[in-house]
């Protein structure tokens, strides 16, 4: 599903350059649920930006769902993101003036789906995350866990092939974190690849595989099952 070969990425800030990704090689199969770990500054956010086509890379090869992602213009990138990727963020990033239902329906809005139709679909997805009764509430009226569930529903509505979650439990307590992880596991079981960026060990232990990034390269590649056997 996702193949990264020798990815390099350097940021230029004025005269200084910051070599963040120094040749990342990574292979993620379809239907996997993996976590990416690393201390801050290790380059994991940059990596997620590259995988999410939010940022381009300088050198190497990135193949997403069999397609080489290279030199896309903004419009192409936006369409590809809309169709193949779903995003879940640490701070939920819901649009504050839209209610839960409209937030979930947003990706369909960008696809040009009619209002009535997309609201029906959005209601379905809200039901899946158990928030049917909260459809007309604004984000400010929801709890953290509820917000994240709305965000997950929003990420799922466009039927993406990959879910990218950047610290999805970072702002939640442990109980809610577990619920959110359960939900992501459920999503994963429908065949969607899930990539979670986290620095919490407990969370990463709930995934199939842990990829550890250190100084811009892949440090370790740990299969969680083996870890548990040990």
């Amino acid at each position, binding site marked *: 599903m996702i193949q990264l070969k020798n990815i390099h990425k350097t940021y230029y800030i004025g005269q200084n350059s910051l070599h963040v990704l120094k040749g990342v090689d990574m292979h993620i199969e379809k239907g996997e649920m993996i976590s990416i770990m690393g201390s801050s500054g290790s380059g994991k956010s940059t990596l997620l930006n590259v995988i999410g086509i939010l940022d381009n890379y300088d050198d190497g090869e990135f193949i997403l769902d069999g397609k080489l992602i290279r030199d896309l213009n903004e419009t192409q990138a936006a369409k590809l*993101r809309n169709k193949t990727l779903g*995003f879940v963020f640490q701070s939920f990033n819901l649009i504050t*003036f839209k209610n839960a239902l*409209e937030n979930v329906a*947003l*990706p369909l809005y*960008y*696809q040009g789906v009619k*209002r009535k139709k997309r609201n029906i679909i959005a209601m379905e997805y809200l039901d899946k995350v158990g928030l049917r009764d909260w459809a007309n509430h604004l984000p400010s009226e929801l709890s953290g866990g509820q917000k994240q569930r709305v965000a997950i529903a*929003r990420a799922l509505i466009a039927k993406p092939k990959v879910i990218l979650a950047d610290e999805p439990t970072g702002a939640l307590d442990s109980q809610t974190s577990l619920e959110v992880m359960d939900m992501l596991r459920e999503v994963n079981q429908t065949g969607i690849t899930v990539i979670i960026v986290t620095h919490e060990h407990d969370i990463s232990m709930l995934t199939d595989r842990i990829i550890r990034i250190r100084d811009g390269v892949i440090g370790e590649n740990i299969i969680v099952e083996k870890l548990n056997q040990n």
Partner: protein
Amino acid sequence: MFDRDKWQEIYSSLKSNKLRTFFTAFGVFWGIFMLIIMLGSGNGLRNAVYEGMGDFATNSAIMFTRQTTMPYKGFPRGREWLFHTSDMEALIKNIPEIDQLAPRLQPWGGNGGNNVVHGLKTGAYNITGDYPAINKIDPVRLLKGRFLNEIDLQNKRKVAVIGNRVHDELFKITDPVIGEYIRINGVYYQVVGVFEPKNKNINIGGEKDKSIFIPFTTMQVSYNLGDDVHYFLVTAKPNKSASVVEEKCMKLLAERNHVAPEDEQAFGHFNLEKEFKKMNGLFLGIRVLIWIVGTGTLLAGVIGVSNIMLIIIKERTKEIGIQRAIGATPWRIMSQIITESVTLTAVAGSFGLVLGVFLLEMINNMLASSAEKVKCSGIPKSISR
């Protein structure tokens, strides 16, 4: 193509920053409003002045005599002199640029005592002896009857064309007027026409609505004026300068009447072309100023809007990021922000437009109702000897 979500977003982003929205809108509103008001006042001023001048030929000049100030050819200074009928032919013969030439007599000044009688009523009016050509230089609107014609002059007919105030004051509503007789300084004239002035602001020797025109030749013989001429009114041919014609006329008249060529004081003269040019220049200046100030004000509004747009984008970087992440194309985001500012500008601008026009209309109405009482004049009310 009404996109509810788009407008919802615009509404909420404008609402969440009420003060900013207000000031942006006010900037645009004020720019448009001021431009409208200034253009309106400028045009109003111009129209008022031009309307006062009516159809008066703009390429015309008026000349009359004054005391000489220099001794010449044996004549002392301080001599009273007048034009003569023979000057008229000389002018036409020697100055081909003259289009219309109208000599005029005005023996009793602007309003010479109780000089007109009809039945039991008398009044003081401005009596002039004229040629029909006067109606081509300073036209009047005929309400009844006809104007003076060539035959009147040839036959020295005792006919009169009277102004509307003369008519109102001397005649009863039931009077037929045309064909009736009035007595001017002891001589009876038949009224052949009633007129009203087209331009109230230019009066040559007395108010026009209180004027009576009689044939020039009739006046010369009736009142023992010999071959005197008091005024010459001339217009230049199309594309010829009235100033040049005026200059040439005065030179010729001075020569024929033994006035020192350099004695400028010996002539009274008035050149409408020059006045018009001056006024046109003034109005052009006002107009340019209005546009400069107006566009400046508008520009300030535009800069305000662009500034606000910049802030909007800076402020919403994160939100735009989210929208991008879930599949919004750059065009979608751009159109969102542009629609937002265009909407704000359009609404504020039309408010300014509507309010500006409303205010102008109000002033217009107020002025129209008081116009009867106040007659404003752009140039001197009368040019009299």
